[in-house]
């Protein structure tokens, strides 16, 4: 990644132009041809620096008001396998292993379910736990009550989708 890639990333971080030839438009501000913009963006995506281009929805506006973070304590030897199983469910949005915080917070597998109601989310979770034989595992379900801050991704900073 070179200085021009950084300029390109900076130019698109607030959004792609909404016009017939967006990459031509972007190139104008950077003294790049349309093809150069396309090649560079494709390379950034290929290298995984840009995970994807597309839209991020405002999930509350779409009616997804119940957002549950589920945490489980899974033995370390098994966590990758369980993480893989959990990720197969279409209603699971994100799934990560994170470090336990001692006895006070002994959970190491985290996943999110975004749904339109708490009841529905809890039913989905119940189905998942049953199917994966996880009902006996220590767990907690934390619904979000309020979102205080949610900013867009700046290239030096966070994507929306981490918790």
């Amino acid at each position, binding site marked *: 990644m070179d200085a021009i890639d950084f300029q390109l990333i900076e130019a698109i*971080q*607030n*959004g*792609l132009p*909404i*016009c*017939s*030839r*967006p*990459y*031509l438009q972007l190139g104008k501000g950077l003294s790049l041809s349309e093809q150069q913009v396309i090649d560079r*963006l494709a390379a950034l*995506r290929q*290298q995984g620096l*840009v*995970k*994807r*281009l*597309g*839209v*991020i*929805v*405002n999930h509350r*506006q*779409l009616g997804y008001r119940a*957002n549950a*973070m589920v945490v489980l304590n899974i033995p370390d030897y098994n966590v*990758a396998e369980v*993480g*893989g199983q959990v990720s197969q469910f279409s209603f699971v*949005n*994100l*799934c*990560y*292993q*994170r*470090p336990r*915080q001692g006895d006070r*917070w002994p959970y190491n597998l*985290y*996943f999110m379910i*975004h749904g339109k109601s708490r009841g529905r989310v809890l039913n989905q979770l119940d189905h998942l736990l049953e199917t994966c034989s996880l009902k006996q595992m220590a767990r*907690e379900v*934390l*619904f*979000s*009550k309020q*979102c*205080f*801050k*949610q900013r*867009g*991704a700046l*290239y*030096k*900073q*966070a994507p*929306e*989708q981490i*918790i």
Partner: protein
Amino acid sequence: MDKLDQLIINQLQDGFPIVDSPYRQIAEQLNITEDLLLQRLQQLLDNGILSRFGPMYHAEKMGGALTLAAVKVPEENFEQCCEVINAFPEVAHNYQRDHVLNMWFVLATETPEQITDVIRQIEQQTGLEVFNMPKVNEYFVGLKLEA
């Protein structure tokens, strides 16, 4: 939001092509004109149904760092503590959750060292212990929400 808006949202959550005329390509797949797509997309952004249209970066590959952190905030200090934490530009988002660990936020910094630094500052300013839970493994990231 009508049926067409829903189709557009669902289609664009799967990704956006990197070709000369990407909107035309999407419009053809949806069987509508490019102009109509551009117009609807702009509307969806203007009215806040879409929060963003653009790239999702891989923060760590870009040299940056991310972590998920949480604090147990006493009820009576909640608002004040929220203000202190949100004032940090490194706090990308912050959710209240119904648990004793009631405030959950994501830190995003330009370098991994800054995570430790910001956590220390938050602990100093709030007097609370910050639980730091950076990801160890990522099994799935696919936040597609059917419209």
